[in-house]
């Protein structure tokens, strides 16, 4: 039997609309209640189906032209006596149309680039889960992992010990992403693994959206301390968010080996 009070929270949970306390309570319940956990899995599958069935659409070029024209003539009309329209608003908007026409083309290119990068990241993550590919330096000791990168990269990545918070360090490795060598730190959480990719943010590929889900994996992205960070895992989104929070806290309080 499912529990209505928890079932009602599953959608907001998957939509990332619950606060931390609610997330903890719900996840504790889901780990013990097979029926509710099955409901969550069904809802996740349904969301995939819905997203697949609802592609984002592109405005037809004819419409783009029509709107531009309408806005321009409205702008011309407003140049006269209209009191309600500040005359410079339509002009600003008409000007922004021209900019946007170019901008959206660039955006399309950027999106394709982001997508290619996300795929590389995902491929690297999946490859790392195959036997023997996870770590170059298997160690739970940050004082072993950090120096290992010396001479192997042109930067020295910050390594944090989060074992007290339930995310033990598993090791580190090198990888190659978006045309540069990057550091990968591997953390564990129960039977799950988290790959944390980082590199100096001035030298890497363009950033993508902060949260993405692909093929059952969650990808989080953020920038901090001059580094670009990506965390990839099959952990639930809320737990991965918590991990990201801990890592950011550790980074800003400077508890790493420097």
């Amino acid at each position, binding site marked *: 039997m499912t529990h209505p009070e928890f079932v009602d929270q599953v959608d907001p949970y998957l939509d990332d609309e619950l606060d931390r306390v609610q997330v903890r309570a719900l996840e504790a319940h889901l780990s013990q209640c097979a029926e509710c956990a099955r409901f969550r899995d069904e809802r996740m599958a*349904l969301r995939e189906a819905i997203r*697949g*069935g*609802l*592609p*984002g659409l592109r*405005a037809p070029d004819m*419409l783009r032209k029509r709107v531009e024209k309408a806005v321009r003539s409205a702008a011309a009309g407003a140049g006269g006596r209209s009191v309600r329209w500040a005359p410079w608003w339509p002009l600003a908007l008409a000007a922004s149309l021209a900019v*946007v026409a170019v*901008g959206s083309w660039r955006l399309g290119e950027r999106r394709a680039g982001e997508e290619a990068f996300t795929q590389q990241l995902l491929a690297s993550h999946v490859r790392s889960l195959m036997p023997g590919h996870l770590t170059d330096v298997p160690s739970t000791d940050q004082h072993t992992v950090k120096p290992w990168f010396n001479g192997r990269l042109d930067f020295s990545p910050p390594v944090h010990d989060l074992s007290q918070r339930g995310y033990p360090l598993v090791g580190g490795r090198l990888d190659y992403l978006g045309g540069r060598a990057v550091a990968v730190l591997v953390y564990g959480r129960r039977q799950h693994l988290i790959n944390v990719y980082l590199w100096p943010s001035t030298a890497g590929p363009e950033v993508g959206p902060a949260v993405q889900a692909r093929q059952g994996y969650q990808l989080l992205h953020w920038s901090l301390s001059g580094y670009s960070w990506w965390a990839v895992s099959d952990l639930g989104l809320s737990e991965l968010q918590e991990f990201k929070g801990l890592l950011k806290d550790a980074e800003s309080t400077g508890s790493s080996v420097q």
Partner: protein
Amino acid sequence: MPHLDAAYTLARYLTRNDADAEDVVQDACLRALKYFAGFRGGEGTSARAWLLAIVRNTAFSARRGKPGAAAFTEFDEAVHSEAIAERHPEATLLKRDARESFARALASLAPELREVVVLREVEGLSYKEISDVASVPMGTVMSRLSRARTRLQEALLSEKER
């Protein structure tokens, strides 16, 4: 106009018709122009959510204003699935059958339910933004989303059995 694709996407899913969607977007852009001076960013409302709210209101009032037609144009599978597939090749990634049954399921939703699904899943708005766009309380957003998803699931399951 920034967010024209987002505006078109919402209008197209709400009206389920290319011509109506284009009219709605054009009207909405002109309205946006008119009210732009009244738009204050901040308070959690992004410019995109603001424009989507105008698109949404334009679509709903256009629907009310149509003589006789109390609803948006009925979904015509032959016209609509093909039109979407032709113009939007990414849609063809879905298997044809799956796409058609999904389109039917979506079309069977009441506009109020379809709107929250599109705002959430396609436009990626938060519950708060959806509540602003649709002018309903957050609790209503949640219950509508939940109902819409359950309906889609039922519709997809019954399609499978056919």
